């Protein structure tokens, strides 16, 4: 089940040196020789989808940028998702693969400059890798390294670009999309760190090889960050289409019976039990109102209280709103308050209806998809935890409410605005 591609050959505890990287993955082919059209076609044939959250086809974004003047590449390692660690694992352990991806993306689109954005500790390793390459004379694009901003929404493409331009990291209304008008007004391809690493392998081995793993609709392998009630939480590489049930066993098995999985991230969805036969690929997950998101899988044990977890999460996500759009500011605050009433057993008449009405009311009405994600997460909680919600409404807090939280809700270091 476990298939190592982007995680192949990692060295314990330190970044993979350039020489080792070349031994494991081989040389990046001369992309200039290959021509941009060929690489774009390979990306399209590979069926690669973005690994940052939306699972959007990379070829569509890359082609949109390739047709325009003086495009730029941005490698997004913001990873604002508290339960995700894959991007910082890649950046700090396989930085050369990510750099290769940036070079490949530049070659495919005609860009001459790429910016890698990540938190300082991970960026430090990338900086060392860049120096290693410069010394070896192996750097064909201009690479900039920038520290990411703090906060859940700061990795959203337009917020990321605002941050890189020295403005507060806040999303803006689209269109224009960043592929049309992005960094410094130039067409910008923003791709997640893992997407870039996968791209580096497609440039080497081609689309047919890439499709040897995964499903036809969602090919390849993916990184998942597995945490919660499992023996060995961590970042794993699995073929897309792997049954969710297999993930907990991959992480050493569960430490107690699993009540539900949070799949995707904090904007993702709760899935009942151990996920059963449901598979980890965006198509299958979307059919049940979930999505692969950023590859986050949190196992919530039976001893935890799903209502308390969901209420804390909703409150935190409401706090992480950029505070720009009314439906997000007030809608999420109202939803968080409502879930807090459920958790405390202090529901008011009409609260059950409000839960359904407000989750649909906040969707699709803001500059970014932050409230849509929260609404999705809450709707899934209403679906999966109906029994617990009703019990709380009737009887108030349960024994599980006192258990330490499974979902981390980090204190906000810097306000986005």
């Amino acid at each position, binding site marked *: 089940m476990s298939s190592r591609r982007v995680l192949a050959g990692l060295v314990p505890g330190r970044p993979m040196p350039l020489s080792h990287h070349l031994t494991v993955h081989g040389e990046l082919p001369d992309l200039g020789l290959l021509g941009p059209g060929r690489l774009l076609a390979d990306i399209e044939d590979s069926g690669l989808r973005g690994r940052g959250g939306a699972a959007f086809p990379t070829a569509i974004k890359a082609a949109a940028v390739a047709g325009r003047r003086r495009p730029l590449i941005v490698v997004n390692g913001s990873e604002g998702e508290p339960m995700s660690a894959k991007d910082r694992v890649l950046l700090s352990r396989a930085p050369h693969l990510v750099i290769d991806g940036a070079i490949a993306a530049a070659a495919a689109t005609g860009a001459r400059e790429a910016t890698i954005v990540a938190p300082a500790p991970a960026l430090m390793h990338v900086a060392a890798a860049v120096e290693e390459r410069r010394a070896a004379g192996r750097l064909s694009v201009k690479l900039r390294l920038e520290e990411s901003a703090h906060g859940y929404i700061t990795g959203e493409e337009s917020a990321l670009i605002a941050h890189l331009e020295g403005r507060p990291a806040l999303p*803006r*209304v689209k269109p224009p999309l960043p592929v049309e008008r992005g960094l410094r007004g130039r067409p910008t391809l923003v791709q997640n760190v893992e997407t870039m690493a996968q791209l580096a392998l497609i440039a080497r081995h081609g689309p047919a090889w890439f499709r040897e793993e995964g499903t036809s609709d969602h090919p390849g392998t993916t990184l998942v960050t597995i945490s919660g009630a499992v023996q060995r939480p961590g970042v794993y590489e699995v073929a897309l289409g792997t049954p969710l049930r297999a993930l907990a066993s991959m992480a050493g098995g569960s430490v107690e019976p699993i009540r539900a999985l949070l799949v995707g991230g904090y904007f993702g969805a709760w899935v009942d039990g151990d996920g059963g036969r449901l598979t980890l690929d965006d198509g299958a997950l979307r059919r049940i109102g979930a999505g692969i998101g950023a590859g986050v899988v949190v196992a919530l044990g039976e001893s935890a209280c799903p209502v308390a977890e969901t209420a804390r999460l909703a409150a935190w996500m409401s706090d992480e709103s950029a505070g*720009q*759009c*009314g*439906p*997000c500011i*007030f*809608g999420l605050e*109202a939803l968080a308050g409502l879930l807090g009433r459920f958790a405390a057993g202090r529901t008011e008449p009409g609260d059950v209806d409000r839960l359904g009405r*407000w989750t649909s*009311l906040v969707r699709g*009405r*803001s*500059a970014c998809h932050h409230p849509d994600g929260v609404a999705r997460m809450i709707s899934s909680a209403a679906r999966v935890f109906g029994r617990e919600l009703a019990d709380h409404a009737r009887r108030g807090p349960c024994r599980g409410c006192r258990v330490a939280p499974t979902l981390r809700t980090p204190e906000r270091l810097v306000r986005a605005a």
Partner: protein
Amino acid sequence: MKDRLVVDPIKCTAHGMCAELFPEWIELDDWGYPVIRSEPVPAHLRGHAMQAVRVCPAMALRLSS
């Protein structure tokens, strides 16, 4: 043709005048922000739509294609 009424959610500050002027197309949510029908505004209601665009104090409404 620019016949869909859209709001810029960042500019909108919930004055609510749009819903008063064009209730056939706009209602306010529980927090006073407009919920706008997404289909094209039919020709006989275009005048109302344009008036709603004009009176918005936040200049948050526009007709879009």
